[in-house]
């Protein structure tokens, strides 16, 4: 048993920290601390900054332009990025499509697509969920019918995150209605400029805009755009669900959010005293912090074991559930800390001129509401419990 990082790992951490210090602007840090939506430009600039150091595609092998990090290095990188309030890397191309192509793509697909993800030529988004099939992916209805060398796609996708910034979408579509529902699904890549595609914004409950509906009407896509075999998209979908594990618990982001919460508690007062010395409130903060400490170790245990298969599914589902519970608990406490100052709708005007709350906390309530998504999107916590159940009972 040794919970310490090696000297090399510590050196790597120092290198990352220095890079972030040198390259992350105060403006971006302020936006991140204030939970502001980043612009497309903000995100593209940050991607480019990382790519300049070859650190953008953290999970990719060296020959395809990744840094070739192991799981521990990636973890250290994630931790430092969170601690520095760096923007999160947009995962759809780098963390999702990239690994899929690396495993299932043809050489042509890899050669054509991967470089364009790295250099920012393409911004990918995800076409998985449908209005009638959220967590139950196998029941998806969007159809791709073969017509010569093309598929004709008809249907609707939803919850497409940052689709408004994207020029490409990868989709699960139904290419056959025979057999089990999972059996007739294929994974295809679609250019969002193709005629027949319409993207409509979905406004989230707190007022923000980050997800979209995507409508497909007779959209013609070359069969060559399929990744993997026809009707075998389910394998890819499952691979994606369990592949991206290093940051599923969100330990770094929660650690940062907890630090902000504690600073906030020292700034606001209740009954004439700083909230940070109120035992009832701080007991909740302390227990949340303890849970987070434990999860940090759980996360390291998983990294270290580098488990595969069934057990990996269980652990990553556990981290997803507990990680979201902890993050949502921090959000809840941060909103509460503000008292009635949490009430104003956090418009630019309110934050800029009215300063009802400490400015970096003005979006706490909005962030609380927005982060209710964490336990719903990407496989709801209920679905995660079902997955764990199956593994527990060996079914």
């Amino acid at each position, binding site marked *: 048993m040794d919970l310490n990082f090696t000297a090399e790992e510590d050196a790597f951490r120092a290198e990352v920290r220095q890079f972030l210090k040198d390259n992350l602007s105060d403006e971006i840090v302020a936006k991140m601390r204030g939970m502001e939506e980043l612009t497309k430009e903000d995100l593209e600039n940050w991607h480019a900054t990382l790519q300049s150091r070859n650190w953008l595609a953290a999970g990719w092998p060296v020959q395809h332009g990744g840094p070739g990090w192991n799981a521990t290095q990636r973890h250290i990188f994630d931790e430092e990025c969170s601690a520095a309030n760096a923007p999160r890397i947009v995962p759809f191309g780098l963390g999702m499509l990239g690994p899929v192509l690396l495993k299932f793509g043809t050489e042509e697909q890899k050669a054509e697509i991967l470089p364009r993800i790295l250099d920012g030529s393409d911004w990918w988004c995800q076409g998985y969920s449908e209005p009638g099939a959220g967590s139950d992916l196998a029941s998806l209805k969007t159809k791709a019918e073969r017509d010569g060398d093309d598929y004709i796609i008809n249907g609707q996708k939803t919850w497409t995150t940052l689709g408004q910034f994207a020029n490409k979408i990868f989709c699960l579509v139904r290419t056959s209605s025979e057999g089990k529902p999972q059996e007739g699904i294929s994974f295809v890549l679609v250019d969002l400029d193709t005629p027949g595609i319409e993207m409509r914004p979905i406004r989230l409950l707190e007022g923000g805009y980050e997800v979209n509906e995507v409508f497909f009407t007779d959209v013609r896509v070359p069969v060559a755009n399929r990744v993997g075999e026809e009707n075998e998209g389910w394998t890819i979908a499952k691979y994606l669900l369990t592949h991206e594990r290093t940051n599923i618990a969100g330990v770094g982001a929660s650690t940062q959010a907890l630090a902000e919460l504690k600073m906030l508690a020292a700034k606001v007062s209740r009954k004439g005293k700083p909230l940070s010395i109120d035992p009832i409130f701080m007991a909740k903060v302390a227990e949340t912090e303890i849970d987070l400490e434990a999860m940090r170790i759980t996360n390291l245990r998983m990294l270290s074991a580098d488990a595969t298969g069934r057990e990996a599914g269980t652990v990553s589902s556990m981290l997803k559930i507990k990680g979201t519970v902890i993050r949502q608990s921090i959000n809840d406490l941060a909103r*509460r800390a*503000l008292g009635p100052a949490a009430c104003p709708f956090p418009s630019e005007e309110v934050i800029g001129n009215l300063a009802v709350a400490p400015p970096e906390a003005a979006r706490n309530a909005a962030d609380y509401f927005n982060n209710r998504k964490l336990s719903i999107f990407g496989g709801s916590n209920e679905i995660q419990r079902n997955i764990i159940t199956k593994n527990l009972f060996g079914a």
Partner: protein
Amino acid sequence: MDFTHTEDRRMISDSLRRYLADQYGIEHRNQAAYEAPFHDTGKWAELAELGILGALVTEDQGGFGGHGFDIAVVFEELGRGLCPEPVLGNLLALRLYAALGQTERVDAIIAGTARAAVAVHETDAFVDLDEIAITANGSGDSVTLTGRKSVVYGGNSADHILVVAKNASGLGLYEIAPGDAEVMGYAMIDGGGAAEVILENTQATTLSEDARGIIEAALDAGRLALCAEAVGIMDVLRDTVKDYLLQRQQFGRPIALFQALQHRLVDFSIEIEQARSIVILAASKLDAEDRALHIARAKNLIGRAGKLVAEEAIQMHGGIGMTWEYGASHYAKRLIMLDAQLGDTEDQLRTSMELAAA
């Protein structure tokens, strides 16, 4: 013992419910709630006509209600209809004007011809009146006020603002004309309007130099109102979840058949009944000596139940519960945010522990 409301209260409850259902649908609501003046002035007049403001003070005071259950039935319906009108701020003002015998103001508010708001919160005085820092300069007719009052509910659309401020004898109540101060209105995140009120040598009329008792009573009336509003909201959310579970299919069957969801629906339904009960108890105590204890207890339970119901309602809806377009998400948002008004779950817990130990 009798747990049925009087005929009069049932009537106002029924007519308010019908009015909001017919005239204040969710789309109109969401428009009114987020665009200045963050409510619908036309509907305000109609609500006044329905008598919902008169119901908030006693006959002696110019109304026709004024007891705990009058406030409760009105606000339960406002909750059920997710009404963003500034009734809370006007309730506080009405109770204060009425307690001070300011008949003219009371009549105008009841008639819907004037609106008022009460400025209590300061940045370092969220709930505890002892911490209020703004101090009245001068006395009698020549009083000025300086400082900032924060998150004044309905302050953006008020014709009169009552300001709670310190003076030599304790806490006083002062009236200002909004035009004499800087009133910066905004929407609340759950809709409806509030304002920052910035006072700088603002001329004020002294209504009372020793108003602590009536201020506490008015705030407790406001807390009761929020609790009752929460019950109306929770009933809607339970029914919405129930309907959604029956209608939504997953893995080939309605998700209402998933036992894990069933049991969670049961657990939060139980908390809704607990919430209803504690509001009944608190309403019965609004004029009693142990009012403050019972109100604090009620708002603590409502805070806990409300959080459970709101979060479960969003979660059990899945993605759709996260959207602006779906009505239930706004109900959930209001349910969460009303906890922050006039002292939240923990504030009320501290208060009830202090009062029970006293």
